[in-house]
């Protein structure tokens, strides 16, 4: 049986200061090496779910096991380490740090994670080569763009750099929060295909949240968050913990 990259059981999440549950998920399984799309309109808690899977937020109750790690058992430092070692991120926009050049932006995770540093080449020059390789793969020639300030790149170009950063060092899981929403509709598919190709090559699990329904055909699994999430503004004040 295929192992699960993500296993979520009976998770309820509410912000610490409130008693209204935002997320209530009985069961969520995401197999390894798959490409999953979690769909839902804005405000439905997609980013919150991603934050839970990333270990940035902890569920108020329930179990969240990501890549065989029970997140509720790790302290915040361990979760930070876990996150950078195993997970790559893609935000919707403004993914780049303005005062770092392209290569350095891509290499950021390697600076914070020994595992990814080693995977990406284990030496400075190796790292740079790997970054360039990924950028090339994603359609950006680093020589042409490296002298530009990151703000001068188009949104599409910025997203490619961010994708390279998410991929570098072969993390086992990639979490993407609406990565194509800022791109032109014509380019969205092409962008996704590039990411898919790399993920398949490295056996990386991809979980993407988006409100864009046009992309669903590309994915192995499409989950509707409204169906998955059973929280209907329940008040937790009388619930047992």
């Amino acid at each position, binding site marked *: 049986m295929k192992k699960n990259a993500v296993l979520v059981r009976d998770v309820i999440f509410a912000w610490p200061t409130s008693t209204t549950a935002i997320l209530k998920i009985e069961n969520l399984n995401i197999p390894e090496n798959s490409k999953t799309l979690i769909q839902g309109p804005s405000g439905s808690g997609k*980013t*919150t779910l*991603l*934050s839970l899977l*990333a270990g*940035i*937020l902890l569920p108020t109750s329930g179990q969240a096991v990501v890549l065989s790690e029970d997140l509720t058992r790790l302290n*915040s*430092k361990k979760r*930070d*380490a876990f*996150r*950078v*070692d195993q997970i790559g*991120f893609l*935000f919707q926009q*403004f*993914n*780049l*740090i*303005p*005062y*770092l050049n392209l290569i350095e932006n891509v290499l*950021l*995770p390697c*600076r*914070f*994670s020994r595992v990814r540093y080693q995977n990406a080449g284990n030496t400075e020059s190796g790292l740079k080569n790997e970054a360039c390789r990924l950028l090339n793969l994603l359609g950006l020639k680093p020589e042409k763009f490296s002298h530009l300030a990151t703000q001068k790149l188009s949104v599409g170009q910025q997203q490619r750099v961010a994708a390279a*950063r998410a991929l570098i060092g072969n993390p086992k899981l990639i979490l993407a*929060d609406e990565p194509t929403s800022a791109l032109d509709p014509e380019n969205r598919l092409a962008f996704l295909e590039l990411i898919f190709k790399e993920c398949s090559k490295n056996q990386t699990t991809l979980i993407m949240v988006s409100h864009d329904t046009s992309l669903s055909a590309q994915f192995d699994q499409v989950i509707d968050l409204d169906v998955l999430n059973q929280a209907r503004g329940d008040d937790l004040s009388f619930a047992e913990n």
Partner: protein
Amino acid sequence: MLFKLAWLSILNRRSTAFLTIFSIAISVALLLGIEQLRKSMRNSFLQTVSGIDLVVGARGDAIPILLYSVFRLGEATNNLRWQSYLEWAADERVEWTIPLSLGDSHRGFRVLGTNSDYWRHYRYGKERKLELKTGEFFDGLYDAVIGSVVAEKLKYQLNQQIVIAHGAGSAALFEHDDQPFRIVGILKPTGTPVDQTIHVSLEAIEAIHIGWEDGFPSTQTGKPATMNISELQPKSITAFLVRLSSRMQTFRVQGEINSFEKEPLSAILPGVTMQKLWQILGTFERTLMTVSALVVLSSLTSLISLLLATMNERRREIAILRSVGAGPQRIFVLLWIEATLLCFVGGLLGFVLQYAGLMAVEPMVKNQFGLQLFLEWPGKEEFLFFLLIMSIGMMLSLFPAWRAYRISLHDGLLPKI
């Protein structure tokens, strides 16, 4: 790693941060510069004259006597009689004396009447004698020896003729123009008020005041050629400097001069009087220092508030860093390093600026007050001062760092842009 990030972040921001850094630099330069100036002024006061045990003038307060006799600042209210001076100069316990006669000026520079004892005994700094650059000490009646600053500012040469004015103002309303003087000597620079003095003989002072008994020139003025030098015995002097053969006698002699029955005199101890002067100046200096310290504090806090204000713009950046593995503590340290580095750059700039400023001010102080500034390489005290300012900056830097920490905790991946 974090250092590199912080540094790159600052470089990116340099145009906005530049003004605040500059204001820190200026305030630090001010604070350090005042301290340096203070010490330097002390030194230059102390090196003006050496080896004098007592300064005697007509009865009066100690500080004015010190100021007008040694530093040529201010005026005496009264003179003392030549006879009294002779009596004390002859005292067995006195090794030597230097008589001084003040009151006249020439184009803003003080004229000092004295005799050859001045050239023989006057010392300054570390046993340094007064030396001539060119010419010789005065011999004839209307000879004058001028200090280096006088020569430089007024562009005087040897054998030039000058006219002495009555009183100390720079606008000569009453001049002794019937009796011009001739420059026979120019002194080497000393870094003391000697540089700004025109020296003539005591007899010459007497000569130019003949007929001035009422304080105004009378119609009959003496002709230079016909005056007999013996008639020109000085009648009074302003003050005299005393060196005793035994320092142990200092109190005794001082007490006796102060209770001299023939004339009311005041003998002061120059070392003690200078200390009193420091005390008075000290309060003023401390106020100045406090004010400039507050200015430093205010410029540091304006930097910090700038960082706090821009923290909102950086929420996205913080979220990115969190996503690549930087925990909230790391974010805290990053921001702290950044703020501290900014303070440091500002402080360092201020340190350098201070020296530049002092070097610029040095010639002005020399010309105005005749005092030499002793600028030295930064010593232990300057560095410690600097460190103290930096550590305050470090503490203030905790505020934006803390804010960033809270942001990173709170926002997670959901920055509120």
